[in-house]
């Protein structure tokens, strides 16, 4: 077994472990993410609070687990949404060609011209800032999913165009195969590896973007935890030096993103 394969297995196990821990947060920790222990704010790690508490006396370990759940469930959801949009638009552009192709590609180019973070904060600014925490979570990841498609679209479009010009599609067309049948039986199965790769690539990108947005106060709002707003704890230098547990969200986020990078399918895997 090659080193890369071994690394992938380890990364997959780590990701599954973290995912299960986040899913079973209620069983692992007795505290809710919003429960306050006002008599012990900024406490150091102890038996009751393995990572200590934050400035409001909330258990950091519970918040980390619930925050992991938010980031690990919603980043793939946003990635799925952006991949579906990229697949639909890129597939349509590649398959239909002509002015459809030109219009869709122009739209993607226009979207790619503006830095994602500028557009994200502009859109986030349109929405009210003090919405319910759950709404802020959904809004943040929905915006990520709705804006993250242009780079994937180019890849899907190029792949679809190659398939459109392929011999097997010409054969299918000559045998009287209808457009819908061609899309679902010929094109989509061949696009699947590309879509799958784009989905995996988008997840760590969205995790990191959410972290940056939340650290700027424009992402998931309190008291709902996410890796991004847990990282805001690092802004308090005195608390960070007295409690190294504050680094836990950063360690978790970095570990998960590295795992995703390792798991990413290579060219050989995609055939």
């Amino acid at each position: 077994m090659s080193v890369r394969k071994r690394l992938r297995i380890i990364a997959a196990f780590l990701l599954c472990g973290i995912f299960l821990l986040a899913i079973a947060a209620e069983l692992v920790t007795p505290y809710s993410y919003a429960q306050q222990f006002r008599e012990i704010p900024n406490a150091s790690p102890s038996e009751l609070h393995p990572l200590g508490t934050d400035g409001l006396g909330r258990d950091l370990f519970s918040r980390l687990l619930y925050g992991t759940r938010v980031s690990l469930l919603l980043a793939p959801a946003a990635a799925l949404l952006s991949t579906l949009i990229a697949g639909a638009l890129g597939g349509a552009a590649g398959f239909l060609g002509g002015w459809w192709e030109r219009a869709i590609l122009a739209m993607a180019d226009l979207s790619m011209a503006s830095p994602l973070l500028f557009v994200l904060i502009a859109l986030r600014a349109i929405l009210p800032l003090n919405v319910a925490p759950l709404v802020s979570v959904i809004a943040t990841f929905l915006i990520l999913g709705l804006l993250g498609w242009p780079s994937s679209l180019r890849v899907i479009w190029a792949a679809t165009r190659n398939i459109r010009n392929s011999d097997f599609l010409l054969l299918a067309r000559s045998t009287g195969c209808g457009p819908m049948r061609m899309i679902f039986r010929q094109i989509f199965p061949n696009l699947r590896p590309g879509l799958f790769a784009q989905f995996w690539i988008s997840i760590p990108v969205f995790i990191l973007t959410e972290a940056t947005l939340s650290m700027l106060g424009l992402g998931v709002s309190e008291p709902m935890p996410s890796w991004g707003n847990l990282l805001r704890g690092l802004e308090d230098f005195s608390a960070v030096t007295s409690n190294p547990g504050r680094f836990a969200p950063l360690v978790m986020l970095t570990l998960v993103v590295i795992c995703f990078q390792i798991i990413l399918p290579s060219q050989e895997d995609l055939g």
Partner: protein
Amino acid sequence: MNTVDKVLVIHEGLADDQMVRNSRAPAAFVDGAYGCRGLPRRDVSAIFTGYGVDERELDPRLSQPSIEWIRSQHNRDPGLIRYYGKYLGAAVRGDFGTSESLHRPISQLLAERFHVTLRSVSLAVITAWAAAFALATLSWLFGGWLFDLSCTLISGFMLSLPAAVIALLFVYLRAPVFLAIAVVMFPKLFRFIHNLLSHASEQPHVLAARARGIARPQIFLRHILAPAAATLVALLGTSASMSFGTAVPIEALCDSAGIGQLAWYAAINRDLPLIINLTLIVTLITVACNSFADYSSKLISGEI
């Protein structure tokens, strides 16, 4: 003090009040969704009930002339085409409107802050490119598997850190802002250049040059760098977009008075004219950079 001044004084007094900002949320949302007051008011109000009603009109401290003034502000929209015509005409003259939160002309804010970001971004692009190119070249020329692996691991680790965390680290280190932007850009550039050089070195003409015993530096300059130059120039254009995007969290957290920090401030205060103008200007800059890079790339590759 005239009526307009009175309204402004009262409005400024309430500007930090979250309640006021939130009460204007539906109007702001529709404004943003329809291109910053782009649609004629009658059309929008038919769709969104309550749109166009400013909650400030309910403030008992305001006199009738002040309320009339607020209403007149809402009724100024002349229609979609005329609105954008006026906006573009004013933008050409350098008038981008007025910031709602800072109550200052946007062009003035841009003039004050743009050079700060331009300096940081230019220095960051130069630093990141120099470091990434030097390391990728060294890796190709002299690096064994250990050097290669170390570079890949370090860049992989740096890619896994959010830009805002790197900004915080630079706040603690009291290091310059441009260096933080360069650190965020470096791993992406390094990976791209490294892959580009690796791919180029596997080409048959490079293998043939090696077989003929040509020295490695000469192969690098004549057979690898020359064909890859067009792609590298195209990457330079993309770096501009990347660096402006990175400037937002870095400037906001490092307290650098550039347009990145201004964009963050505008987003926090829901200052739509400011944030939309900033986004448009940054988009225009990146389009210009990309077009220039694209043209240069085609010129180098002989397509033009």
